[in-house]
């Protein structure tokens, strides 16, 4: 009898854990995204009523100190830099992915794939620094008359493109790899070459995955802050002419980074409204992307898209006939616009004509080439673009390493900054970053891991779960600067405690929460069903099974994910710049309610201190080494657990 009561109590406790604890933890994600949107909305109401939403979006003059808040040039700047980044990154990224997935040997792939992941994890401030020190001077030296300072739309787009590349390559590669071997065999058996198979079977079958990759890259470009702010020049003007890629440009995120924290009143409220516009733009992109993805998938499988289905045949024929001429004339206009930046209108028209002639004769030329030679040319092109990607990434690492090493010394690592950061060391910044990581981990780990376990093991297929999942998705797609804005609104503006370590930890924890939840959920779900059944068959409750069998089995994956996301937190600048970090501190604090120095923000601060190049490179190198060592530790952990757990 006594035993039976014990069992019953145990079951009751278990039931309570499941029902209240886990559900409550899972609900925090919903609360967080709700709070973020709420705070940003409340803060922006003043601007909405004083300026008016339409006047805000359509006004062409952003002069806050004269009271004119026209955000159009800034919104346009965000759109233009993103388009530029995609033009740069999509062709290069997809062709490199084709190389990786279809052409590269297993050995090459095993090297390049992790390299892509490492580069996706390098902090944006380091990319921005690379842009500032390498890309901007390069543009200035190449086009001294067109881009008088080098800071330009072009620089921002190239840099954003580089940052989006690793994601695009890695995710597209996964998509192409998951196309079943049987599709390839069927195509090859029909006498198609390897290249024809890639082009006509593998790419169409992987299309929705490839577009998802592009969308991920695009989301990153729209929401990116630190890299853009350092290279775009940040003049709130509409380029003249509008396609002039050499003009300075200003995006929503860079406006937020430059102005929040220094202003109050209506101006501050207008900035929050700008953040709201940014969120709306991201939402819109995601919705459109989903629609496009579903449509292409449908088109590939059923031969017609959602709109085409409702069109009469003759309209379809007209569209089909017009497709090519329309595309060609669009290409003509684009080439002419670009050429007109360099030369007069007649020459650029001629250049455009030549290009169109070349493009339109391509199909005829390519038909005359034997299919195997076509394959050779294509494979050569794909390999070349992979080489370009690798070269860019290599230059980034090499530049920072070579110029950073002279700065490193014992003094550099153990002294406080002197002479505004031009001399001395970076100890307070290292300590601050470590404090941030520890605090972030203490908040994010319990929340994230428990939510992940809840979603994988206990969540029912109901509305609550759906809301939790979409909250996590939204949280995951929210730009880091928005987290910073939220922290500013909550801690500095509303609570009035100013910049604090604790505020930084909370904001960073919110930022990495979705990543931890996802990795935990995925690894827990990957634990084979048999283990659950074996444990349940011995009379264990669900909670016991989870705690004693499932979680230990999933530990390797969870720990790896946690380390990687903490690495990300260590490199983030935008979320802490208004909430926790200050440029220079000459002593080390251990109070939760004091400001801190942090490595990424210190690097940003130094870029505005003249003659501090050597220290800048030193800080960038230290930051890079921290992130790289996080990756190394993560892969060691993965290796360690892969030996222990096997199924």
């Amino acid at each position, binding site marked *: 009898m006594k035993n039976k009561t014990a069992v019953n109590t145990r079951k009751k406790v278990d039931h309570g854990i499941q029902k209240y604890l886990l559900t409550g933890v899972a609900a925090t994600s919903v609360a967080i995204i709700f709070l973020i949107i709420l705070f940003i909305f409340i803060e922006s109401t003043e601007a909405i009523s004083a300026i008016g939403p339409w006047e805000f979006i359509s006004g062409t003059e952003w002069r806050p100190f004269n009271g004119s808040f026209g955000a159009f040039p800034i919104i346009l700047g965000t759109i233009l830099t993103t388009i530029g980044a995609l033009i740069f990154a999509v062709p290069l990224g997809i062709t490199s992915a084709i190389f990786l997935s279809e052409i590269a040997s*297993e050995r090459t792939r095993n090297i390049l794939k992790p390299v892509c992941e490492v580069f996706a994890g390098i902090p944006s401030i380091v990319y921005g620094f690379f842009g500032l020190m390498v890309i901007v001077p390069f543009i200035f030296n190449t086009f001294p008359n067109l881009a008088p300072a080098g800071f330009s739309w072009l620089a921002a787009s190239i840099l954003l493109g580089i940052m989006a590349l690793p994601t695009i390559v890695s995710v597209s590669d996964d998509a192409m790899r998951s196309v*079943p071997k*049987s*599709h*390839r*065999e*069927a*195509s*090859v*058996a*029909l*006498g*198609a*070459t390897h290249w*024809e198979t890639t082009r*006509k*079977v593998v790419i*169409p*079958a992987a299309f929705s995955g490839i577009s998802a990759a592009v969308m991920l890259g695009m989301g990153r470009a729209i929401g990116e802050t630190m890299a853009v702010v350092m290279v775009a020049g940040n003049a709130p003007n509409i380029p003249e002419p509008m396609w002039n890629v050499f003009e300075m440009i200003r995006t929503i995120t860079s406006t937020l980074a430059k102005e929040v924290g220094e202003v109050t009143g209506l101006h501050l409220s207008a900035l929050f409204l700008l953040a709201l516009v940014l969120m709306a733009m991201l939402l819109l992109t995601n919705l459109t992307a989903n629609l496009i993805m579903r449509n292409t998938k449908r088109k*590939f*499988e*059923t*031969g*017609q898209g959602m709109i085409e289905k409702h069109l009469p045949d003759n309209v379809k024929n007209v569209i089909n006939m017009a497709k090519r001429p329309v595309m060609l004339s669009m290409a003509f206009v684009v080439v002419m616009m670009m050429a007109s930046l360099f030369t007069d209108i007649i020459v650029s028209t001629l250049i455009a004509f030549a290009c169109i002639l070349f493009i339109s004769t391509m199909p005829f030329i390519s038909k005359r080439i034997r*299919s*195997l030679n076509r394959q050779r040319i294509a494979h050569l092109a794909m390999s070349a673009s992979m080489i370009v990607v690798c070269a860019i990434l290599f230059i980034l690492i090499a530049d920072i390493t070579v110029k950073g090493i002279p700065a490193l010394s014992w003094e550099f690592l153990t002294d406080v900054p002197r002479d505004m950061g031009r001399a001395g060391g970076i100890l307070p910044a290292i300590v601050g970053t470590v404090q941030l990581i520890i605090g972030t981990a203490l908040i994010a780990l319990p929340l994230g891991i428990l939510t992940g376990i809840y979603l994988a093991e206990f969540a029912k297929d109901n509305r609550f779960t759906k809301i939790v999942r979409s909250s996590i998705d939204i949280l995951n797609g929210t730009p880091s600067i928005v987290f910073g804005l939220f922290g500013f609104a909550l801690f500095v503006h509303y609570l009035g405690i100013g910049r604090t370590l604790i505020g930084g930890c909370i904001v960073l924890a919110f930022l990495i929460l979705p990543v931890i939840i996802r990795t935990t959920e995925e690894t827990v779900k990957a634990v084979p069903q048999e283990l659950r059944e074996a444990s349940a068959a011995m009379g264990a409750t669900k909670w016991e099974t989870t705690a004693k069998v499932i979680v230990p089995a999933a530990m390797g994956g969870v720990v790896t994910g946690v380390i990687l996301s903490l690495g990300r937190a260590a490199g983030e600048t935008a979320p802490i710049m208004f909430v926790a970090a200050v440029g220079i501190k000459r002593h080390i604090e251990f109070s939760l309610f004091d400001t801190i120095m942090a490595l990424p923000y210190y690097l940003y601060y130094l870029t505005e201190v003249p003659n501090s190049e050597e220290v800048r490179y030193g800080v960038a190198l230290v930051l890079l080494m921290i992130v790289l060592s996080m990756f190394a530790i993560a892969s060691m952990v993965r290796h360690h657990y892969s030996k222990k757990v096997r199924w």
Partner: protein
Amino acid sequence: MVKIYENNNDGNVITIDSLNLWYGENQALIDVSMPVMKNKITALIGPSGCGKSTLIRCMNRMNDLVNGCRIEGSMKFRGDEIYEPGADVISLRKRIGMIFQKPNPFPMTIRDNITYGPKIHGVVENDELDEIVERSLKQAVLWEEVKDRLDKPAFSLSGGQQQRLCIARTLSINPEVILMDEPTSALDPIATAKIEDLAIELQKEYTVVIVTHNMQQAARISDNTGFMYLGKMIEFDETEKIFNKPSDELTERYITGRFG
């Protein structure tokens, strides 16, 4: 042990002589010799892992896709060495089509599945493509079932229909030989019967090689049968002989179900 079917040499579409194949260190085919005769169905039987699938995949060089695969010996298609350096693999595969174990239609419409091959090989006119679609589907006895839904996804068909679609896809480029690698192993008995009837029908115009683990199937439809064991061709002869009075004891034990 190995008896090569020598007579009627001119009727041989494919002639294999002392073929050896290695996957890395493993030798998967040992000294295999056999003919494939024109307008006949040739069956390859034997227990799992005996090399019959490997052998059939040699005939249109599908093993090229496998890393570390090495081949020695002679395999001639209409008198030309298939594995000669510089041999035209593309046109070889165009002339020797292949049907796989599991139906593997492309994730496209039924029509696009059929037009894929002809388009690759340069057919562009829509009328011609329509003709090919109709002819191939009729030959594969699928036309009546799908003619009203050519623009539906191929995945909407049943397994048996999908396999016939794959046959139609192969027929679309007019091959001379059709290789079938256990084409019915993923299908139910009714769909299997349809594929078998189809194979017999195709034999009039094409040469068929079929790998099967189902001895009754080999007995029912094939003209010649090769029995393989552990990478070796144990016996190759007319199907009737193999099944009624095999000359090798191993063959007899396999046929009568005493091992395998």
